[in-house]
Every structure is written in C-alpha cells, then in structure tokens.
C-alpha cells in the first residue's frame, strides 16, 4: 500500500484544496515532477501546466499559470493565484485563454523566457480542450 502525505493548494483568497494524496505530479519550472511521501524538502516554482493529485479514492486535476511549491515534513504546499479545478473550466474560457496566449506568443517583443512559459500554457490548454 502506498503511503499518504498532506497536500494543500492555496490561492490568495482561499484554501482551494486540502487533502491527503499518495502521488502528486506538478509542472515544475524545469520539468514535470512527481512527488511521493518522503520526498526531500524542496522549494521550486511552476510553469503553466496541470497538477494531478492521486489518492486511493479519486484523482483531482488543476490547471495553473504559475505558483510556488514547498515540500517539507510530508506536506506539499502549492501557492498559486491562478489555480483552477479542471472541472470548472468551460470550453469558452479555455479558448479565450488559448487565443490570448497565442497572441502574445507571436508578438515580437516576447522574450525567450516568456515564450518558454507561454508554450507550456498553450500546450496545457490544448490538452484540456
């Protein structure tokens, strides 16, 4: 049996999600990262992508634009101002965000770093729709 650890997702206005999980995958800035119980303490930040939380009963998925992750004492903490449960996304919203992202991606003043971040946003959103 897999062991569980605590996970909290907090947005500026409220605690979005608080539960236990046995596996969480997060879109860390340098690549997807899987977190299991007993992971070493880590602080990292996120690029746009999908957070997937697995425990025995269910799987929850969230989409976020950015965020900070801290793991310590078997508690995974995700701070993000743009996190949203995938169930709450409507087709229209996805398309709107996708259009916006693609537009700024094609702008000339867009730097490489921004392009890197936006490319993941576009990819993530495309997967959603």
């Amino acid at each position, binding site marked *: 049996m897999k062991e569980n650890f605590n996970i909290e997702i907090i*947005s500026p206005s409220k605690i979005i999600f608080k539960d236990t999980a046995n596996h969480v995958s997060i879109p860390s800035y340098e690549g997807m990262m899987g977190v299991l119980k007993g992971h070493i303490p880590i*602080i990292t930040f996120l690029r746009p992508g999908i957070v997937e939380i697995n425990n025995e009963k269910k799987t929850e998925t969230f989409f976020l634009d950015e965020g900070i992750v801290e793991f310590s004492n078997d508690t995974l903490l995700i701070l993000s101002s743009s996190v949203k449960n995938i169930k709450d996304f409507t087709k229209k919203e996805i398309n709107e965000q996708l259009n916006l992202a693609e537009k700024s991606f094609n702008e000339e003043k867009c730097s490489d770093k921004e392009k890197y971040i936006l490319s993941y946003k576009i990819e993530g959103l495309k997967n959603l729709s």
Partner: protein
Amino acid sequence: MPSLDDLKKRIKSVKSTQKITKAMKMVAAAKLKKAQEDAEKGRPYSDKMHNIILNLTKTVRDPISAPKLLVGTGENKTYLCVVMTADRGLCGGFNSNICKLAKKFFKKFLSEKKNLKIITVGTKGHDQLKNEYGKYIIEKKNFKNIKKISFKDANEVGTLILSKFKSGEFDKCYIFFNNFKNVITQIPQIQQIIPIEQKEELSTEKENSINNQYEYEPDEDEILDDLLPKNISTQIFKALLENAASEQGSRMTAMDNATRNAGDLVEKLTITYNRSRQASITKELIEIISGAESL
C-alpha cells in the same frame, strides 16, 4: 423656547436619522462577516509566502548580487508611501486614523530631507491628503466600482509599484493600512514592503536548522526573482482585505453609536416636548381660573 410644532418636527427628523443609521449598521454587520471571512481566508497565502521568503533570504550569502527588491537599491533618498483608505465615508475614525498616521510619517520623512512620493488607494484618503501633500501625490487609485476586491485589483497596484521601482523612481516603499484586530479595534499600521523587512522571530530558531536542508530548483536566486514581485502584490492584497474588514467593522461601531445617540436625543426631546405641552396647559388653566376669580 421652541414651539410645540418645532419640537415635533425635530423629533420626527431625529427618528428618521436613527432609522438610517440603524439600517447602515445592519448592512455593515452583514458585510463585515463576509469581509472578515475573506481576510481570514487570505491569511494562509500571505503567511506561507512570507515564510518561504524568510527561508530563502537566509540562503542569500552575497548581498551585492541579491535581488534589489530584497536588499534595497543601496540608497535611501526617495520614499514611496502607499496610503490605503476606503472609498466611502461614514465609518468613524477609519479613514482619518490612517491619514493621521501617514501624515505623521510624511512629516518625519520630510524633516529628514527625504524625497516623498505618495500613491493613494481609495478616494477618501486622497481627499484628506490632497490639501497638505497634494504636490507629492503621483498616482491615485480607487476601487469605487468594484464590489469585491480580487487579487487582480491588488496585482494592478503591485505592478504599478514594481514598474516604478524598476525605473528607479524610489528606494523604499511603505504601505499604510488598518489592521483588523476585532470589530471594535482596528490598528492603523505602516509596513515596509520594499526592501522586505526581515523581522526574525525568536520562536522560529528551531525551524531554521531544518530549513537549511531545503533543496532549491532552480537555484535560490531564480526562485527569489520570481517570488519577490509576487510577494509585493500578495502583501498589498492582504492589506486591502484587512482594510475592507476594518472599514466595515469601523462603520458598524460608528453607526451603532450614532443609533444610540439618536435614541438619547429622541428621549430628551420627548421630555422637553411633554414638559412644554404641560406648561401650556397649566398656563391656560391658570388663565381660566384667574379669569373666573375676577368676576
């Protein structure tokens, strides 16, 4: 001596004022509950973020290469003050308390020959400060048309401050707001947000030994670069939420007092009204009796 009719009119007008203040009190009480909840819900985010930043700042070894948001520009000339007040009045000393505190600091800064720049958030603060310090106000913002403050609004103010910081318009940034302690007490506060105040709490010493084992990915500096600008907006959002709760609390207390005062006044006026009515009746009786006697 006012006539009976005048007294009657006054009683009526005080009573209708009382009705208004009572209604405002009840509205404020309902809004307060909501605002208080929001403020409490917002606390974990800013607290946790603050913790992470504190941990990170300990790892910064070289103060020269560290981000400017953390250590400051190295100069100490221009101060930017963000004064956050409400957009509406009739809430007791709420707005004037913040302004009083702000003015005290403005005076101090000016006497120290610092350059002063002011951003006002909320119309009431702007109204109170524009006479004395109007020439220092560089920007004004208000959320008059917004019912509920969201992180987006705070972000707007945050980005404004950041862009001014990047173009080197100021060295230090302070925010003024009311901290919500409970319904009756709100404490006007000043907080330094650029560079970040590094208040070390003694109780966290034990934690420090654990924190040193954190792994950072990518390295500390990059995380700090990403985190610090966010922290500005977060702190502003927190201040706005506290402010919103304080405003409603303050208004509720003020309106409660007003309702009570109106009640007292109605009582007093009613007594005067009754007395003068009785006096006129007595006077009439005396006139009749003395008229009858003289016959």
